[in-house]
């Protein structure tokens, strides 16, 4: 077979059949399901008289619409309530495992998959959600699909695909103190642009990636889609195996040992080739802050907001001007002068235990600025429980943060957690599109540490020199 990349190995293991023109029927091992992108898929199955091929190869959870405040009263928004009960009923009808709102295992799909051992190395994993790329952190080929394909996978456990291109993004050297995986991925998107990964599966390699924990790798792979990539991957290693071991849905005993060997064999062979290469040096990376209305509009914390007058390309200039108008920012002002109203720590990018630990460290013994409203939304019930065992909830509460129930929350503001027009938010989520966190709301994407420090000061600060 010659030398193969991680992607090629996974792909080749999942080809059911291939047409001469390369059209491939690809086997899908697992599907995650949430309430927003699935109702029409189940309806389609019913209309065609079909049923899921492997109901236990799916796992469903409500996350986008769930309230993050007291849930004992149910959901007040009638449409959200219908969407969630529809998911519950569909799962009951078709025999798909479902973690309801009162279940401790409930949380954001991309947090609970790995947490439960549903996500395993070498798998193909899909979900009607673009941030399915998160699961690539385990060396699984994971990508987002639309609702028609959700139905397709339920019915057939397969998808029709063309082999994408591959891109290696290598990050070597050492990462400066105070920089996190979030800063690395934002710096990557800043470099290659939000369309830079179109049509490609990215594999992240290099010393810095290897040094990341599984949580860090998930943060990194999560935002692959923000560079337009089909998927992001990190080779499985001992850290991966350790993380997966003993989880409720991961293999046990002898089968685990067999799986372990297969997983460690997945890494890219030396001499294997990618279609494209991007290289970054860790030492060049600083804490990042987005200033605009897409994740590629990003700069260093000690940088300034761009000035459209300095931009030659007419298209880039007008897009920049539009973004500054929407964001209510003057050209050329220092990022650290940007005053904020809200802080959101959460989302499938940065709501895992490690993220909460880091943020808590920055707010311990401090107070959230009087003009800032700040909240922490853990990624799952189990993350919340763990954080409470470690006393993190107390640290956040004492500092003036709200401590909420798990879900997507203000990452996309489908529930009651919404910015009001003009409000400015430091957010650990992944999208700063217009209106993403509420119509007219202004989002700046940052790491958990940067968000925590901004909550205390009421504006962005360079955490490398922040001394209080």
């Amino acid at each position: 077979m010659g030398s193969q990349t991680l992607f090629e190995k996974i792909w080749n293991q999942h080809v059911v059949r291939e047409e001469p023109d390369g059209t491939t029927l690809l086997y899908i091992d697992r599907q995650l399901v949430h309430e927003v992108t699935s109702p029409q898929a189940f309806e389609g199955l019913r209309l065609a008289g079909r049923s899921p091929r492997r109901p236990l190869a799916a796992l469903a959870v409500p996350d986008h619409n769930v309230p993050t405040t007291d849930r004992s009263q149910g959901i007040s928004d009638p449409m959200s309530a219908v969407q969630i009960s529809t998911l519950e009923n569909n799962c009951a009808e078709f025999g798909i495992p479902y973690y309801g709102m009162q279940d401790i295992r409930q949380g954001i799909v991309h947090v609970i998959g790995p947490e439960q051992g549903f996500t395993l190395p070498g798998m193909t994993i899909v979900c009607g959600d673009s941030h399915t790329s998160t699961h690539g952190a385990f060396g699984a080929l994971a990508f987002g699909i639309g609702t028609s394909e959700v139905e397709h996978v339920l019915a057939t456990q397969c998808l029709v695909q063309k082999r994408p291109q591959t891109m290696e993004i290598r990050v070597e050297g050492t990462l400066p103190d105070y920089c996190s995986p979030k800063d690395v991925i934002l710096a990557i998107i800043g470099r290659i642009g939000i369309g830079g990964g179109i049509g490609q599966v990215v594999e992240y390699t290099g010393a810095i990636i290897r040094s990341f924990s599984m949580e860090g790798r998930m943060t990194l792979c999560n935002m692959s889609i923000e560079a337009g990539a089909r998927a992001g991957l990190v080779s499985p290693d001992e850290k991966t195996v350790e993380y997966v071991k003993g989880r409720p849905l991961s293999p046990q005993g002898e089968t685990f040992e067999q799986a372990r060997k297969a997983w460690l064999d997945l890494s890219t062979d030396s001499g294997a080739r990618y279609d494209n290469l991007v290289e970054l040096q860790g030492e060049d990376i600083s804490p990042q802050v987005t200033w605009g209305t897409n994740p590629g509009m990003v700069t260093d914390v000690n940088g300034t907001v761009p000035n459209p007058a300095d931009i030659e390309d007419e298209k880039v200039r007008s897009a920049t001007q539009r973004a500054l108008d929407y964001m209510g920012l003057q050209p050329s002002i220092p990022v650290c002068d940007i005053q904020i109203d809200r802080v959101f720590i959460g989302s499938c990018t940065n709501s895992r235990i490690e993220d909460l630990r880091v943020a808590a460290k920055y707010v311990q013994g401090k107070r959230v600025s009087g003009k800032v409203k700040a909240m922490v939304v853990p990624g799952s019930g189990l993350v919340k429980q763990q954080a409470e065992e470690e006393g993190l909830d107390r640290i956040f509460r004492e500092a003036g943060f709200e401590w909420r129930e798990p879900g997507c929350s203000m990452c996309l503001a489908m529930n009651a957690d919404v910015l009001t027009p003009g409000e400015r938010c430091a957010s650990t989520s992944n999208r700063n599109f217009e209106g993403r966190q509420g119509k007219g709301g202004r989002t700046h994407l940052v790491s958990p540490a940067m968000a925590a420090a901004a909550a205390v000061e009421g504006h962005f600060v360079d955490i490398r020199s922040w001394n209080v």
Partner: protein
Amino acid sequence: MQAFTTLTGTVAPLNRGDVDTDQIIPKQYLKTIHRTGLKEGLFADWRSRPDGSLDPDFFSNQSRYRDATILLTGENFGCGSSREHAPWALLDYGIRCILAPSFADIFYNNCFQNGILPVVLTVQEIQTLFDRVRSQNIYQVTVNLVQQAVLVSEGERYTFDVDPFRKDCMLKGLDGIALTLQHEAAISAYESHRAHQDPWLFHDQRR
């Protein structure tokens, strides 16, 4: 799915790059459990100005584009979320074809699932079309999928690429799931081979 062979229609302009699916259909419209009725939400936040009044410059507020079936737009159209509500909303408005210099992957794929033809043209061709739309009250083109060409004026055509499998499905309006199910034997054979080799992938099939 509705078949697509050839389409002559009015071109509506949306001259912006990187249009994300959060703009095509904002989240407040995602709470539905149906595929239809989504045109209400199409570009909802761009259609109206901050004071709530309609923006007369936005294409969908102009009567001349009420019957538009072709959308002309900028690069990386449909980036962001995988929500199929985006093509559903466009379809509900009447759009059957989108012309752009590039598309985001998931959105591009979702279009084919719904009988909307996404056509990639060169940056120069797209620019020329924007110029023509601007200079004419109503500008129409014909998109011919069989010939893989957009007829932009008498005797002038832009050709485009499309994957042969997708083209065939679009031309015939085929049900993708039914096509895959024709390979049931191959899928079953794959499963039993894989379950033997990597049993942990088949935790649902105790043997």
